[in-house]
């Protein structure tokens, strides 16, 4: 690759770059620190490639417009931070039940409420999982470098198209604003997944029926001749509302299972110096960067320690964590909150090994020194 393909860019910029490679044609958003650059760069780039950018009146409107755009056939994204992420939750639930692909970026900052607008945090881990009401599953990805923001954003679009579900990208202020060298990929070499369009005639089309061998129903765009009904109500395979309890059970179970039974495809993670490790750290996002430095220093002191870094935060890499738990005498979950992902790790690993946690909510990045003293002390 020629050198001119290596550029210095910010995480938020890499997010837009990845989205455009993935085929984003629509962005709707409402400004909020530390995500605003995603809107600004989208506003500048989308009109040049025939895409649509709109600044909506709030975050509820933004997620709603994104869902509408996706139904009309555009790959669509919105970005926000904590307060706006809260506002989008009802819309995310709609996208889940109506099976509308879309990407929601949350560049996390300190909370609750307006909190620490310009400081990093990882306080929305559980909100990403359970923020919208009702039983559901969700895909949430968590990059820790600028290059990975680009890759993860492409993947978020691909997964959303493949599974017809909203995909959340959980960044944090540090990952969003940090500048790093990124080697831009050759778009022609990247695998792009597009939603499967119906092959049957409109007369035979059943909008919410999954064909044998498929994961999700086929999805036409509004205006292509398949005049179907989209609703947030529980619906039958024809797309129409129903109170039938067996249909409700079947639909909600299918929506959960299409994600939970495809973990092999959805789950992505990194293992760092784990091969010979007898203890492990689990960390994600910018915290994982400090964890790596801490691990290198601890290794110099003779500890056999490694990092397991989930890139897919939800659904959690259950199988891999279980295997790890059976191998090591201790797992420490390090995160910029007081133990949110710890709950999930302890649930999976707690019966096999000692699971401990270290967290902070002061708006500062957790430093390698802090991690080292936690590991050595405990």
């Amino acid at each position: 690759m020629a050198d001119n393909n290596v550029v210095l860019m910010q995480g938020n910029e890499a997010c837009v770059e990845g989205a455009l490679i993935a085929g984003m044609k629509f962005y709707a958003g409402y400004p909020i620190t530390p995500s605003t650059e995603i809107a600004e760069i989208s506003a500048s780039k989308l009109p040049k490639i025939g895409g649509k950018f709109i600044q909506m009146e709030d975050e509820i409107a933004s997620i709603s417009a994104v869902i509408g755009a996706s139904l009309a056939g555009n790959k669509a994204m919105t970005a926000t931070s904590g307060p706006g992420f809260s506002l989008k939750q009802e819309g995310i639930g709609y996208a889940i039940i109506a099976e509308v692909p879309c990407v929601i970026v949350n560049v996390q900052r300190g909370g609750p409420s307006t909190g620490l607008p310009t400081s990093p945090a990882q306080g929305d881990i559980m909100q990403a999982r359970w923020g919208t009401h009702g039983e559901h599953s969700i895909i949430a990805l968590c990059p820790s470098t600028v290059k990975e923001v680009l890759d993860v954003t492409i993947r978020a679009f691909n997964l959303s198209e493949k599974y017809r579900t909203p995909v959340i990208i959980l960044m944090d202020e540090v990952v969003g604003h940090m500048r790093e060298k990124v080697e831009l990929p050759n778009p022609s070499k990247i695998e792009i997944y597009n939603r499967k369009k119906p092959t049957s005639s409109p007369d035979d089309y059943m909008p919410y029926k999954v064909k044998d061998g498929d994961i999700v129903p086929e999805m036409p765009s509004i205006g292509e001749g398949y005049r179907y009904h989209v609703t947030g109500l529980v619906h039958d395979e024809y797309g129409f509302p129903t109170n039938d309890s067996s249909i409700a059970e079947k639909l909600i179970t299918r929506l959960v299972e299409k994600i939970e039974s495809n973990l092999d495809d959805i789950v992505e993670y990194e293992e760092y110096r784990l091969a010979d490790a007898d203890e492990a750290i689990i960390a994600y996002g910018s915290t994982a960067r400090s964890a790596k430095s801490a691990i290198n220093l601890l290794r110099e002191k003779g500890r056999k320690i490694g990092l397991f870094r989930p890139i897919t935060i939800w659904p959690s890499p259950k199988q891999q964590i279980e295997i790890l738990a059976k191998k090591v005498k201790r797992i420490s979950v390090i995160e910029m909150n007081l133990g949110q992902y710890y709950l999930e790790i302890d649930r999976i690993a707690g019966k096999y090994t000692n699971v401990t946690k270290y967290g902070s909510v002061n708006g500062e990045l957790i430093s390698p020194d802090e991690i080292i003293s936690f590991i050595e002390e405990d």
Partner: protein
Amino acid sequence: MVSKLIDKYYRTDRLPHIWCTGCGNGIVLRSIVKAIDNLGLNKDDICVVSGIGCSSRASGYLDFNTVHTTHGRALAFATGIKFSNPNLHVIVITGDGDCAAIGGNHLIHAARRNIDITTVVFNNNIYGMTGGQYSPATPTGDKGTTAPYGNIDYNFDLCELAKAAGATYVSRSTIYAANMIIKQVEEGIKNKGFSFIETLTICPTYYGRKNSKGNAVDMVTHLKDSAVNISAYEKLSEEEKANRIPIGELYKRNRPEYTEKYESMMKLF
């Protein structure tokens, strides 16, 4: 004649509808469909978007592209749809609560952008779906289940609101004057911009009963008696205006439309 319209435009296997005996929503819905028929539009090119409420259930009965969204957000969904595919005729069906309470912000901003969406409000002066709570369109003094001693809020004039916010076509009619609804929806669809059409309908079950307004016929008669064409209304004294509602085409203006402005911006590149 009516049944021909039903066969052509309704999802007949979805009928009967959920609306109560005496509900006026069917008249509004038929008028919308009749307007579409008069314009000779292709069903594939029409997208009906609705929010949540009794009125918003209308989308499910129609054989167009239909999107039944979340409470109050129909216009925001519709904005995403229209902006994505400006060739579609996007029609929003919404209730007075859906459009003016929870969705009020989206209403004023869709109007401000002058995006080419035709909004038809089914104003029954009450929250029907949830059983008769007062809405922003419940007249002061009237009762609702959450206003047992009379509503102390002032109600919105929805048309004035849409006009002030930037709508380029604003009209009002009643279910007594169904032909007027048809004409207005036709004009609204033809208007390249944000069209706001308020239809005064009736909810005998919740609003009527709570407020001793009589049966459906009494309520329609009342609509007939209180609605006055805008040209005649303007000639009335302030006193005479007090208990009258102006109907007809209330406001029109020329202003470039949102998706067209965006298209011309794209041509810069």
